[in-house]
């Protein structure tokens, strides 16, 4: 554990160097925007719409006292989506999707000696391979999460159209009540942090692969497990720090 932490830190020191050729870095960065960002939007949209709908339905069913106005549905849906669901749950989904992709890509490059081939050309492979991924995710994940929030709220609204649990008007009224911009800020801070965890931990697992195809699979599993655990852990820590 301590051993891996040490090796992880040493790797990050290699990663965070100035890229030798700005042009090459920018090219890699745009490829990663596509791979890590754009390719994830579909799954994020589907999950967000459904989760927003479920939160809205459950809230509506649980309001049985006439003292609680139905505008609470919109309010609660908004709060849960912005505070927890979009930044944390979607980051966990991305840890699965993006993390396994990064670890298997880099792991395969390691066991097929592509990383050695880079090194022999005088390239710092850690910097060349991992820095664009970390940078791309930290920039694009906030956008994905904002989209996810939009889709989630839209999911809740769909419920008002399809069912008669509450009306579209009360839902929207609820969405607009007691809005605090800080909660979005808090969500995005978490997102950026989680993006770093996912890409750097998965990059480490891939880079550290030894052996063959079996170990690449193992690295990819470890990447998902470790990123998820760390996301959960830092979610608690960041929530304490940012909301207290």
């Amino acid at each position, binding site marked *: 554990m301590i051993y891996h932490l040490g090796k992880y830190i040493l790797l990050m020191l290699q990663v965070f160097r100035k890229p030798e050729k700005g042009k090459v870095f920018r090219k890699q960065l745009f490829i990663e925007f596509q791979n890590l960002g754009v390719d994830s939007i579909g799954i994020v949209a589907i999950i967000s719409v459904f989760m927003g709908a479920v939160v809205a339905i459950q809230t509506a069913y649980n309001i049985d006292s006439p003292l609680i106005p139905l505008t609470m549905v919109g309010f609660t849906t908004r709060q849960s989506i912005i505070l927890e669901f979009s930044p944390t749950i979607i980051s966990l989904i991305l840890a699965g999707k993006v993390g396994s992709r990064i670890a298997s890509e880099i792991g395969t490059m390691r066991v097929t000696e*592509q990383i*050695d*081939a880079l090194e022999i050309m005088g*390239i710092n492979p850690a910097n060349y391979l991992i820095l664009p991924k970390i940078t791309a995710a930290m920039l694009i994940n906030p956008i994905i999460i904002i989209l996810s929030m939009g889709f989630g709220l839209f999911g809740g609204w769909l419920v008002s159209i399809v069912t008669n649990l509450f009306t579209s008007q009360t839902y929207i009224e609820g969405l607009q009540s007691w809005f605090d911009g800080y909660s979005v800020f808090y969500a995005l801070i978490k997102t950026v942090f989680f993006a770093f965890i996912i890409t750097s931990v998965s990059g480490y697992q891939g880079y550290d692969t030894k052996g063959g195809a079996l170990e690449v699979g193992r690295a990819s599993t470890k990447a998902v497990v470790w990123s998820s655990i760390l996301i959960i852990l830092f979610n608690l820590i960041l929530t304490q720090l940012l909301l207290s």
Partner: protein
Amino acid sequence: MIEAKNISKFFGDNRVLKDVSVEFDRGKTNLIIGQSGSGKTVLMKCLVGLFEVDKGQVIFDDRNFSEMSFNKRKIIRKEIGMLFQGGALFDSLTVEENVIFPLSIFTKQTIDEKRERANFCLKRVNLKNVNNLYPSELSGGMKKRVAIARAIAMNPKYLFCDEPNSGLDPITSGVIDDLIKEITEEYQITTIINTHDMNSVIKIGDKIAFIHDGELWWKGTKHEVLKTSNKELNDFIFATELTKKLIPK
């Protein structure tokens, strides 16, 4: 010329190379032979600096590589081409982009100049109409050729080949051996080849170093290798039914 002087390499407590000293000549195909697991790849990776040696020195034409900093080594790295065992082509790049890659890293050439050079190298290894294919779309022999093209793109002074024939049929192996030999002589490259293929040993073994269990066991040429009295080397070269027929009477 490349000289390895008293190289030792450990992995933990496991001493994989023991005091290996050997020279490799310019314009010749220098072979490192030995059983699987004897330490050939580790020796080669020590020579090019992918592994740091624990003891000893590697000298490229009077330049002490082992004592250089990462940045100083880059000058020599520019002069090294390496052919990895599996080819190590970049999966996400096309054949042409793979060959262009070192040129983009080391030179300031325009894209047209780089393309021209890449096409020249691909032609040199007898590949046509594959520029836009991805490595996964190539046969084993073609991958090796692309890897050779990439290795010679920078006009290297030193060429390292780790088991260039592994996984290839005998005919394709022969073609690859011939190609490496031709290129070596044409451009006067110092070429080092790891192999356990006896056909290569007899055909292109200008200079041969036999590694046994991490130690340099025997040195010689293809003319001497069949007449040796060294027991381990004999066991190695006459291990197959085919080579047994070569045992001098």
